[in-house]
């Protein structure tokens, strides 16, 4: 099935070494347009390191990551800065929430639209009509993005004053503001209760349909991703130990071993 779909991201033999530690080795991954894929694994398996390489925060020691943008143009991810990658369509959220705490919720989202600005510094300094048009457009988009998570009324609150769950949602809204084609979500449900998690997973599935965006999702609780992900990659000690549909993955003895230990697998 996935062969018919267009490839959007390809990582081939990607490794990264910190000092003497091989955090991720020989990582291979193909993502296709519109997929919802999970990257799972125990704590410390290297999931966030993979994300940091895909989003340009880290440069891989070896291997190559290729990304096809919305116009089908090929980009090599390896040496691009996170800002440049964001412009071509890779947006991400952070496991340890990184919002602009002292700015308002609406401004947090607006900042991610900076690359789409139509104004010049002159428009801004002298408040030309184009400035007001641009700001109005941004405000409308901010409202529609916030209303995805029922946060439309919180636009003027400071981001640091939001409850934890809403801060996570704001991160997703902010990532979507950049109009990405690939969305990387790093443990979006961390710290949420089961009910909140279920709702969040449903809205993630809805977002994928509405924005026609490919989503790669990190989660270390396997149960959560079983329901919504089409494919799963399981990472342990920096290596992919299994991949395939959720059903294939849960019955894989190596996965059981990684999650539950040697004895359970026997």
């Amino acid at each position, binding site marked *: 099935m996935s062969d018919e779909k267009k490839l959007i991201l390809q990582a081939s033999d990607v490794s990264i070494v910190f000092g003497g530690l091989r955090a991720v080795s020989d990582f291979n991954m193909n993502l296709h347009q519109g997929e919802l894929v999970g990257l799972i694994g125990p704590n410390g398996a290297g999931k966030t390191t993979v994300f940091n390489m895909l*989003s*340009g*925060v880290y440069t891989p020691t070896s291997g190559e990551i290729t990304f096809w943008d919305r116009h089908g143009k090929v980009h090599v991810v390896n040496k691009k*800065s*996170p*800002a440049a990658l*964001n*412009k071509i369509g890779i*947006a*991400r959220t*952070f496991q340890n929430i*990184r*919002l*602009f*705490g*002292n*700015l308002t919720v609406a*401004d947090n989202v*607006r*900042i*991610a*639209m*900076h*690359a789409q*600005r139509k*104004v010049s*510094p002159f428009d*801004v*300094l*002298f*408040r030309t009509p184009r*400035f007001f048009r*641009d*700001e109005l457009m*941004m405000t409308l988009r901010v409202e529609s993005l916030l209303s995805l998570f029922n946060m439309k009324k919180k636009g003027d609150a400071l981001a640091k004053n939001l409850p934890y769950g809403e801060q996570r949602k704001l991160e997703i809204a*902010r*990532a979507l503001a*950049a109009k990405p084609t690939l969305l990387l979500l790093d443990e979006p449900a961390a710290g949420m209760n089961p009910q909140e998690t279920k709702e969040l997973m449903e809205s993630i599935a809805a977002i994928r349909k509405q924005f026609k965006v490919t989503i790669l999702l990190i989660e270390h609780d396997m149960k959560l991703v079983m329901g919504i992900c089409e494919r799963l990659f399981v990472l342990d000690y920096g290596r992919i130990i299994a991949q395939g549909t959720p059903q294939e993955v849960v019955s894989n003895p190596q996965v059981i071993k990684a999650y539950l230990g040697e004895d359970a697998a026997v």
Partner: protein
Amino acid sequence: MKNKFYRNTAILGAIAFVAVFVPTLLIKLDVINAYTAQIITLGGINAIMALSVNIVCGITGQLSLGQAGFEAIGAYSVILLTQNLGIPLPVSMVLAALIAAFFGFLIGFPTLKLEGDYLAIVTLAFGEIIRVVLVNQKGITGGPNGKQFPTILSTDFVWGPALSYLVIVGVLVAIIILLQNFIRSTYGRAILAVREDEIAANSNGVSVFRYKMVGFVVASFVGGIGGALYAPFIGFIKPDLASFNNSINDLIFVVLGGMGSVTGSVLAAFVLTYLQEFLRFLQNYRLLFYPVILILVMLFRPQGLLGMKELSFIRSIELVQHIKRVRAMQREKAGAKQANETEGAAEK
């Protein structure tokens, strides 16, 4: 919403107009004496320098300890351009600010790529280098004796004080307006994003290096303007202008007024400049008094007097209107109650 915008612009425009022209008139008519006028105008220059520091430290989130270096570059440039090249004063003021901005670019280029407080060390060294160069290049800068720069602003007793105030506070107001327009735009938000979280800003499409650079160069430009106004106003400058002491003085305005608050740092600059003069009756003890004020503020209000907030005329007007409305409602309620009671009494 548009109506509100026009109304607010009209109110702020009127306030700016009054702030610039009414004192000018009062100074011209000798209601405000020349000595006080001199202090207020110096406060204006200090406010410009405070804004310069605030753009780096409060808004871009970097620490600069050499902002006076840019002031000195602006001041010496304006003298050299006018005296040696014969360029008219207003033009050379703009050129001097551009020269300062260029120096900001040169210093920022290698340092702003690094994470951490490297800028503080480099700017500290920069200020000292400028001072030492100014002391030693006697042929061009006049060395430690400084340079005379007689202009209409400094020598004319009839027009000087009023004109100085008009020019300097006029420029200050223009800077504040343009700066506020800039901060409340997508560019300003990008710079604030860099201040808040560099990694998150970078991952959201804001080039961290570029916007740190924009902030630093704009700050250098504003610092250059401060110097370019200082030289013709005082009429005499010395290399000490670039000293560490002077940089720290500018930093104090911002720390006291509130990092990131434009109104806070401008107010603090005016108040502290006036305080320094006001406290002269304490003789040398005033040097003791000043740090005590600082320590008290840092103890009881470490984020500065205004913190990151802005003092807003519009919001205070709206607040007053809101209070009036609430009072009117209370009065109405009270009136209705009284009427009810009297009615009740009448029935009995």
